[in-house]
C-alpha cells in the first residue's frame, strides 16, 4: 500500500523538479551568473532519482501483487511467474509510459554530463526543450494514465496479463525500443537549441553524431526483437506483417537512417544544415506520432491490446504542440544557418548521401501514406480499405533496386572530387556476376518473378561489393561497410527465404502421416499437462527423412486461465540453412488437429543480418572521433 503513495509522490516531485529545472535553465540563459552548473547537475540527477523511485515502486507493487493498485489489478494476477510479474510492469500502457519517463530523465541527465564541450547556451536550451517534453509526459502520466490509481475495496485477484505478452523477448523488446525513441528526443532538443544559437555546423554534427548512432542502434535492435517475437508467437511463420504498429516503429528508423547519413555529410562537408534539423524534428515527432496512433486505438493492428481514445486526444494535442513549436522555431531562426550552397559533383560521396536521403524519404512516405491513408479515408468517406503487404511490395521493391546499387557504389566514391572509377572493370565484373548468379538461382531453384530476380541481382551486387571493400580497405571505414554488408545480407535472406519456402497444411489425428517431398511427418501422441497459469497440450511429431536422422518437433497449445486465451506455440528447429516450423491449432470437434509444417530457408540469417547492421552502429558509437 505504501508503495502506491511512494510512487505517486515521487512522480509529483519529478514534476516539481522538472519545473524548477525549466525555470532555472531559462533564467541562466538571460543571466550567465545565474548559471550554476553544479546545481543543475544535481537537480537533473534528483529528478532521475525520483523517476527510479517511482518506477521501482511500481515494480514492487507488481511483485507483491498489490491489487489495490489499478494497473496491477488490470495486468497481473497471483499465479503468474515472477519474471512476468516484473516484465508486466512495462507490458501495459501506464507502466510503459513510466518507463519512457525514466529513460527520458536518465538520458537528459546523461546528456548534460557528456556535453561539456558544447556552448553553455546550447546545453541550457537543450535541457529546456527536454524539460518541455518531460513535463508533457509527466502531465500525461498524472492526469490521464496514472500508474498509481488506488482501488477500494481491494480485489482478491487480478485480471491477468495478455498471454501473448508473457514472453521473455517481449520483456526486453519495449525497453530497447524506448531507449531508441527517447534518444531521438536529445537529437531533437539539441538541434532546436543549435538552431536558435546558430550553432548548426560540422562541430555540432560531430557531437550529435554519437546520439544519432545510439538511437539508431537501439531502434534497429528493438525492431529486430519485435520481429523475432512475431515470428514465433504471432503468426504462422511470418516475421513482418506490414502491420500498422510495425510500420510505425519503422518510420522513425527510416528517418534516423537518413539522419545517420546526412549528419556525416554535415560533419565532413558542411552541407545539408537545414535538412539535418528538419530530419531531427521529423524523427522525434514520428516517434510521438507513433505513440499517439498506437495508444489511441485508431489503428487496427495486432497490437491493439493497448489503447484508449481519451489518452489519444491528449497525445494528439501534445504532438501538435511539439510540431507547432519546432516549426515556429525553425522559421524564426532559419536565417541563422550559415548557408553555402555548393555545387556538387556527381560521383562524390556527398551526392550519394543525398541520393540515399532521397530514396529513404520516399520509402518513409510510402509507409506513412500507406498507414494513415485508410484512417483519413474512413473519416472522410466512411469507407474502409486495407493497405497490406502487396501495396508496400509494389511501391518499395522497384525503388529498392537502384537504392541497393547506389548503396554499393556510393561508399567507394570520395568526398568533394569527381573520381573516375579506377576500378571500373572490377565493379562491372561483379555486377555481371551478380546478375548471372541471381538468374541461376531463380531459374533452377525457385519460381521467382522478374522483379524479384533483378532485386536479387542488386542485393548480390551490394553483397559482393561490401565483401570486396571489407577485404580491401582493411579496417578503415568498417562500421559503414559492416552495416551495408548486413543490409545486403538482410535483403538476400528475405528474398531467398520467400523464394524457397515450402509448406504443407493438413488435418491430422494421432497416428496419421503426411508426405512432404521426401519426408514423412507423423503425429505420434498428444499429452496434457498443467502449468502454473495455463493448461498445455503438447503434440509429438516425428519427421522422417530418407537416409537422415529423425527429428522430433513438439508444438504446443496453451490455454491460459486469466484472461482465458488460447495460444499456439510453434515448434521451431533452427538450422544454419533453414528453419523447420511446425504449428498446430485446435479444430472445433477437437478430434483433429490442424497442422502446418513449413521449411523456411535462411531464417536465421535474417536475424543475424539485422544484428550485423546494428553492429555497424555500435562500432561507430565506440569509435574515437578523429
Amino acid at each position, binding site marked *: 500500500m505504501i508503495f502506491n503513495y511512494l510512487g505517486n509522490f515521487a512522480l509529483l516531485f519529478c514534476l516539481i523538479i522538472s519545473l524548477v529545472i525549466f525555470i532555472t535553465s531559462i533564467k541562466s540563459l538571460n543571466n550567465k551568473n545565474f548559471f550554476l552548473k553544479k546545481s543543475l547537475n544535481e537537480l537533473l540527477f534528483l529528478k532521475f532519482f525520483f523517476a527510479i523511485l517511482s518506477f521501482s515502486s511500481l515494480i514492487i507493487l507488481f511483485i507483491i501483487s498489490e491489487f489495490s493498485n489499478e494497473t496491477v489489478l488490470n495486468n497481473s494476477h497471483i499465479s503468474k511467474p515472477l519474471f512476468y510479474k516484473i516484465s508486466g510492469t512495462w507490458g501495459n500502457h501506464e507502466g510503459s509510459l513510466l518507463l519512457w519517463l525514466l529513460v527520458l530523465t536518465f538520458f537528459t541527465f546523461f546528456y548534460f554530463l557528456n556535453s561539456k564541450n558544447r556552448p553553455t547556451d546550447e546545453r541550457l536550451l537543450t535541457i529546456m526543450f527536454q524539460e518541455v517534453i518531460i513535463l508533457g509526459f509527466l502531465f500525461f502520466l498524472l492526469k490521464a494514465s496514472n500508474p498509481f490509481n488506488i482501488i477500494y475495496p481491494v480485489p482478491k485477484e487480478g485480471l491477468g496479463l495478455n498471454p501473448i505478452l508473457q514472453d521473455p523477448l517481449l520483456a526486453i523488446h519495449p525497453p530497447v525500443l524506448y531507449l531508441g525513441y527517447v534518444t531521438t528526443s536529445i537529437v531533437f532538443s539539441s538541434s532546436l537549441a543549435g538552431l536558435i544559437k546558430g550553432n548548426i555546423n560540422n562541430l555540432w554534427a560531430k557531437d550529435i553524431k554519437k546520439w544519432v548512432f545510439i538511437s539508431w542502434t537501439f531502434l534497429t535492435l528493438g525492431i529486430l526483437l519485435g520481429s523475432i517475437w512475431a515470428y514465433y508467437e504471432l503468426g504462422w511463420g*511470418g516475421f513482418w*506483417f506490414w502491420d500498422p504498429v510495425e510500420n510505425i516503429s519503422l518510420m522513425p528508423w527510416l528517418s534516423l537512417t537518413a539522419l545517420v547519413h546526412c549528419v556525416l555529410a554535415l560533419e565532413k562537408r558542411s552541407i545539408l544544415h537545414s535538412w539535418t534539423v528538419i530530419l531531427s524534428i521529423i524523427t522525434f515527432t514520428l516517434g510521438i506520432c507513433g505513440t499517439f496512433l498506437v495508444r489511441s486505438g485508431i489503428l487496427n493492428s495486432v497490437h491493439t491490446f493497448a489503447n484508449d481514445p481519451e489518452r489519444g486526444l491528449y497525445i494528439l494535442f501534445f504532438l501538435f504542440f511539439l510540431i507547432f513549436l519546432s516549426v515556429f522555431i525553425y522559421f524564426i531562426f532559419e536565417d541563422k544557418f550559415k548557408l553555402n550552397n555548393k555545387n*556538387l559533383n556527381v560521383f562524390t560521396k556527398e551526392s550519394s548521401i543525398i541520393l540515399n536521403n*532521397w530514396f529513404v*524519404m520516399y520509402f518513409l512516405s510510402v509507409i506513412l501514406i500507406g498507414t494513415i491513408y485508410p484512417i483519413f479515408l474512413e473519416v472522410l468517406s466512411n469507407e474502409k*480499405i486495407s*493497405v497490406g503487404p502487396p501495396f508496400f511490395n509494389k511501391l518499395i521493391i522497384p525503388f529498392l533496386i537502384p537504392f541497393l546499387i547506389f548503396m554499393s557504389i556510393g561508399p567507394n566514391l570520395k568526398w568533394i572530387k569527381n573520381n573516375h572509377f579506377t576500378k571500373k572493370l572490377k*565493379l562491372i565484373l561483379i555486377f555481371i556476376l551478380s546478375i548471372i548468379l541471381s538468374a541461376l538461382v531463380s531459374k533452377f531453384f525457385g519460381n521467382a*518473378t522478374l522483379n524479384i530476380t533483378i532485386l536479387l541481382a542488386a542485393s548480390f551486387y551490394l553483397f559482393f561489393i561490401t565483401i570486396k571493400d571489407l577485404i580491401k580497405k582493411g579496417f578503415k571505414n568498417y562500421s559503414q561497410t559492416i552495416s551495408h554488408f548486413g543490409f545486403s545480407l538482410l535483403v538476400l535472406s528475405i528474398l531467398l527465404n520467400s523464394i524457397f519456402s515450402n509448406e504443407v497444411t493438413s488435418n491430422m489425428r494421432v497416428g496419421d502421416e503426411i508426405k512432404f517431398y521426401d519426408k514423412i511427418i507423423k503425429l505420434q501422441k498428444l499429452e496434457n499437462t498443467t502449468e502454473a497459469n495455463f493448461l498445455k497440450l503438447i503434440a509429438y511429431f516425428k519427421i522422417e527423412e530418407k537416409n537422415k536422422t529423425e527429428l522430433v518437433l513438439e508444438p504446443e497449445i496453451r490455454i491460459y486461465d486469466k484472461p482465458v486465451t488460447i495460444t499456439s506455440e510453434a515448434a521451431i528447429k533452427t538450422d544454419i540453412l533453414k528453419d523447420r516450423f511446425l504449428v498446430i491449432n485446435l479444430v472445433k470437434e477437437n478430434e483433429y488437429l490442424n497442422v502446418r509444417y513449413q521449411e523456411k530457408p535462411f531464417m536465421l540469417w535474417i536475424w543475424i543480418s539485422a544484428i550485423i547492421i546494428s553492429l555497424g552502429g555500435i562500432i561507430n558509437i565506440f569509435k574515437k572521433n578523429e
Partner: protein
Amino acid sequence: MKTKIIIYIIFLFFTLYNYSFSYDLKLENKINKNLRCLICQGQSIYDSQSDFAESMKLVVKKKIESGMSEEEIYSFFKIQYGEWILYDPQFNTKNFALWLLPILVFLVGGIIILKKFGVSKKRL
C-alpha cells in the same frame, strides 16, 4: 557506362513490372495472403489460424477448383465483405491518391535536390 546499365535495368524493370507480378506464388497462397482475416487483428487469412480464416481458405480453394480467376475471387469477396477484406488496395477513384502520393513525394524530392544543389548535367 555504369549509369547506362542502371538506366537500362530500371527501364526493363518498369516495363515488365506489372506483367511479372502475377505468377510468383502458388495461386492459392497468393490469394490467401491478400485476404484479411476479419476477426483477427491485422493478419491475412494465410497468417491466421482462426476458424474464420480456416473456412475462408476452404472457400478460396473451392473457388479456384471451380475455375474462377484471381480477379473474380477478389470481387466475390469484395461484394460479400467490402473492400476492407482486400489487402491490395485497388487503383480507383478513392485510392488513386494512396498510390500516387508516394510517387509524387519522390518526384518533388528529386526536383528539390536538383534545384538546391544545381547538380551538373553529368548526373544520370
